[in-house]
């Protein structure tokens, strides 16, 4: 209990530091934010121009696709904003030897790597995703109550946890294998699949996205709470379960990796 409080206090200190240092370089933040928003816009413009000519995708209406797309961007954006520093593990911590510094402190190494830098400018992804979700909601006669919004928020957090788990497992591998982030870039590319209903894919891809690399749970299945009309409800409730199982697995891999870490130092 005291340990938990200790970490919460630390987290508060880290966050306020990070906001202060970001405010010191406002121009960088703004430029990063706009740059990020423009990259998101590429994907959005694709889907918008597609639906100029096509009314629906395998029975999914434009609004539904927008909602799923937005959902995936919000949870991915949350991951990018608060956990991006993990993606620097190979380059910044292992190759440059900064992980030694992390290990010297009497603090959890995972906690330290995550909190050392918050990427506030990546919140552009969240913003773009939220706009897509609200556009979709405003065009659909759904009648959602406050409880539904809270559950959706919970599902977004679960989806973000799944991203966190997937990328934690991937970057942990760099404790054993030297790689400058190219496997991560493949996984980011695969993330594109999460923006669309899994029903447009063939069986093999669907099985992979559901059971092996659970990208179907980062947007499509949780979106079905709002869009599903009862379909896929079992998958909706599986989302937090998948998140917890994968996160536990990820923490395990991280711990083993950190143990296997050998300093590059001289």
């Amino acid at each position, binding site marked *: 209990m005291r340990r938990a409080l200790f970490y919460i206090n630390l987290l508060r200190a880290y966050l306020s530091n990070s906001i202060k240092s970001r405010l010191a370089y406002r121009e960088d933040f703004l430029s990063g934010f706009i740059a990020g928003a423009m990259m998101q*816009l590429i994907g959005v*413009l694709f889907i918008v121009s597609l639906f100029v000519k096509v009314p629906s995708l395998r029975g999914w209406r434009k609004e539904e696709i927008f909602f799923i797309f937005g959902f995936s961007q919000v949870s991915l954006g949350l991951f990018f904003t608060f956990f991006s520093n993990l993606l620097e593990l190979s380059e910044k911590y292992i190759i440059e030897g900064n992980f030694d510094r992390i290990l010297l402190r009497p603090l959890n190494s995972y906690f330290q790597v995550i909190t050392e830098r918050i990427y506030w400018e990546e919140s552009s992804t969240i913003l773009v995703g939220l706009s897509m979700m609200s556009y979709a909601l405003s065009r659909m006669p759904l009648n959602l109550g406050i409880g539904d919004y809270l559950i959706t928020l919970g599902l977004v957090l679960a989806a973000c946890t799944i991203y966190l788990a997937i990328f934690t497992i991937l970057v942990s591998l760099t404790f054993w294998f030297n790689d400058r982030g190219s496997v991560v870039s493949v996984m980011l590319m695969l993330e594109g699949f999460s923006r669309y209903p899994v029903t447009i894919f063939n069986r093999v*891809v669907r099985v992979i996205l559901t059971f092996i690399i659970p990208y179907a749970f980062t947007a499509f299945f949780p979106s079905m709470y709002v869009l599903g009309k009862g379909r896929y409800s079992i998958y909706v409730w599986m989302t937090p379960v998948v998140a917890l199982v994968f996160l536990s697995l990820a923490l395990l891999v991280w711990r083993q990796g950190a143990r296997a870490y050998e300093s590059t130092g001289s």
Partner: protein
Amino acid sequence: MSRLAKYWAFMRMGYLTYLAYRFQVLMSFVSYLLIIALNYFLWKAVFAKHQVIAGFTMEQMMTYVVIGWSARTFFANRIDRMIGDAVRDGSIAMDLLKPTNFQLYHYFRAFGRAVFMFLFMTLPIIIVASVIFPVSLPSGKLGPYLFPLSVILSFFLHAGISYLTGLVAFFTRNNEGVLRFKQLLVEVFSGVMIPITFFPDWVQNVLFWLPFKYIAYAPLRIYLGMEPLSKVHQGVLLQIMWIVIIYLTGQIVWHYAIKRLEIQGG
């Protein structure tokens, strides 16, 4: 050293740089296959209920996607980023010492990279993707001959656009937003992402006056044999025209940019 030997050396340098990154190139290859796969499923879903959309049949669209993304590996370049980095870290001073045309230096260095990419990305992707996905051979009388020429022109056109974007680094310290904006324009309006016939008419009219669609859309139409002979010639001539215009603009802007340069440190 003769002029030609000089540019041959720059090309070789660009080529050799990438030999060091074999694993990254392999991963990049996987990423491209993933993008093509995602596009395959998307377009399959789109064409489920339609024969022809925006002037394309399913078969043409699949070929468009595979050849388009493969060609992108060839005509992509990092000129804008390289100039920006060189200005920021001062290594531009070394580049300026070279008794050469700065613009052509960048064009040819990037072309060396493009040759590397052609051998180790473009060709392998086309081969593997045509085994997995339905891809047709170049059609029409001129497709097989003029398409390669047209894609080489695409390279120089895109190199020019990147060069101009890179020069922005001489005028502003923080050029990330500009780089991303250029990327957005190229990704969306070159036609790699989606054929520009999907855009509303007024957008297509605007694009007629801009160079972007000659990067990918025009060559791909030639590949697919979708243009009559006169239009094919016209397309290639317009590519050449834009290359010349952008090259000359680059020379003029350079004249002003070099006066703005201040190198720090010592």
